[in-house]
């Protein structure tokens, strides 16, 4: 259901030659009016601009020129470090895979090439899919992603992903849990500056909340293996909520500096929220 409900729209013009569903920069068949030009040479007379022709004192014939629509490559850059393996309200890696599949569907529907790059502490070449419009290839890559068990120590390879992306400006979905130092996220977004990057932060309501009932819990970090004992109590629950709010505000600040606010997806994919995001930004 979510797989077919997502859609994205862009406010910038694609410079791609291949016709597609987004506004492009090349002249050609389409309905995106660019300008009117005198009908000289080989211009197509079908798109006669009557108003401009009549207004012309030298009585030349004018035709309208349109821009053709173009494709925009869609790249899903997915974090597959071990922290993505968190089982809370949902399995975060499964959620990421589901979202990647939904984005792939959205791309097929309007004919955009879809690419997939998975990173933990290194680029996961076996999960990588170069930009392609083949549904079969994408489906296979998504199946591999779903079957993958995250085992990377961190997501530092996100920094090395930029050269693998198409040279042309693309729409990049960065699917991550945001569990990295602010500095790294800042640099990752900086390395992807030529693209339109949508930072999708996959949160988990169980992970970022603490129960207000009294208890003792020893947490183990999935990535570093570090442990911390916590005395669960109402004050700690409040501290967790405050920390979560502060962290989201910081992530929002970093992402906004690089062009777009982050898209927070907690526990499940809400198509309405996803689609509204592209209308509002």
């Amino acid at each position: 259901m979510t797989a077919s409900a997502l859609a994205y729209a862009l406010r910038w013009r694609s410079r791609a030659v291949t016709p597609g569903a987004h506004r492009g920069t090349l002249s050609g068949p389409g309905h995106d009016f660019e300008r009117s030009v005198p009908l000289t040479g080989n211009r197509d007379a079908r798109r006669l601009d009557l108003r401009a022709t009549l207004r012309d004192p030298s009585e030349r014939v004018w035709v309208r020129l349109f821009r053709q629509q173009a494709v925009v490559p869609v790249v899903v850059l997915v974090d597959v470090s071990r922290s993505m393996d968190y089982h809370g309200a949902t399995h975060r890696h499964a959620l990421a895979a589901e979202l990647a599949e939904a984005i792939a569907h959205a791309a097929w529907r309007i004919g955009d090439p879809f690419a997939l790059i998975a990173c933990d502490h290194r680029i996961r070449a076996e999960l990588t899919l170069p930009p392609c419009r083949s549904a079969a290839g994408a489906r296979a890559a998504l199946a591999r992603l779903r079957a993958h068990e995250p085992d990377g120590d961190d997501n530092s390879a996100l920094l090395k992903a930029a050269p693998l992306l198409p040279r042309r400006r693309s729409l990049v979905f960065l699917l991550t849990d945001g569990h990295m130092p602010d500095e790294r996220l800042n640099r990752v977004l900086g390395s992807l500056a030529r693209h339109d990057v949508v930072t999708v932060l996959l949160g988990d309501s169980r992970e970022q909340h603490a129960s207000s009932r009294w208890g003792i819990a020893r947490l183990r970090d999935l990535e570093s293996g570090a442990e911390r004992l916590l005395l669960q109590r109402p004050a700690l629950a409040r501290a967790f909520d405050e920390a979560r709010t502060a962290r989201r505000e910081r992530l929002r600040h970093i992402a906004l500096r690089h062009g777009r606010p982050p898209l927070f997806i907690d526990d499940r994919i809400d198509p309405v929220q996803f689609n509204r995001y592209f209308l509002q930004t």
Partner: protein
Amino acid sequence: MMSFDHPHWLWAALLALLPLLWHGQRTLPHGWLPGVPADPASRALAVALRLLGALAVLGSVVALAGPHRQGEDVERIGTGAHVVITLDRSASMSDGFAGRDAQQGDEAKGRAAARLLEDFVRERPRDLFGVVSFSTAPVHGLELTADHDAVRAAIRASAAPGVGLTNIAAGLTMSLEQFRDKPVTGSRVVLLVSDGAAQIDVRKQNQIRRLFAENRSALYWIFLRTAGGRGPSDPPDPEAGFDPAPEYFLNEYFRDLGVPYRLYEADTPDALARAIADVARLQNQPLRYRETPPRQDLGGLFIGIAFACSLLLLAARTFEVPAWSR
């Protein structure tokens, strides 16, 4: 200071490091610990739980080693004195202080001493008294007791006319036996009241010296001097031929005992009263003494500590949550 019956068990104390290295708690996976807010209370709890574990092991190990505290001497300050009144009941005690020049109506030495000692007892309500009287053989008058009516009665009874000789050694021995196996909670005094002396043979001398040392008792000798008679402070006169001067030598022997000793010579009832008042004043001073407390077994204490720590750990165990944030 603590000592151990089985000190080799203490090597097992190294096991107390285990709880510091391993916590044995259930761990719950979490995505990113740096994002978890810092919490001093939780940090303190983590440290406390590890210390409790170490303490539980340590307590058990120390308890296994059989800890005990062997009496370190403690300084005590005693208040109530233990006084054994040792009264001479020889025949001469029935005479007055004037000796041969006695007139009708003079108070006998024994009676004067008894009267003044009764006052002495009355003024010292916190003390324990024992009464021994002696002549040729010692008479066990009264065990050390706080029943002062009985003490005064015993003193009055010893004032009855006496018989026989002055056998000081037997009287002192019996008096010192009174202190045997009694706790030292105050100063101990043997108050010897006599009007003569006798030679003590070497064996008895050693025995008495040992008893004084064992019982740590002071000695006050009130010598009731008959007018014209010899006293302990008169050295023997070599000119006078054979002169045993037993009072002088007994005094020398007492001075050599190594315990607090004082001699009072009283030749009138007034002088006797002054002497007894002086003894009372001396004995009013608090006594400082060192006491060796009995061995104290500390195993139960350490087992208790280990048990309490284990209980707390068990409580913490039951508080562990099975899953995060559920």
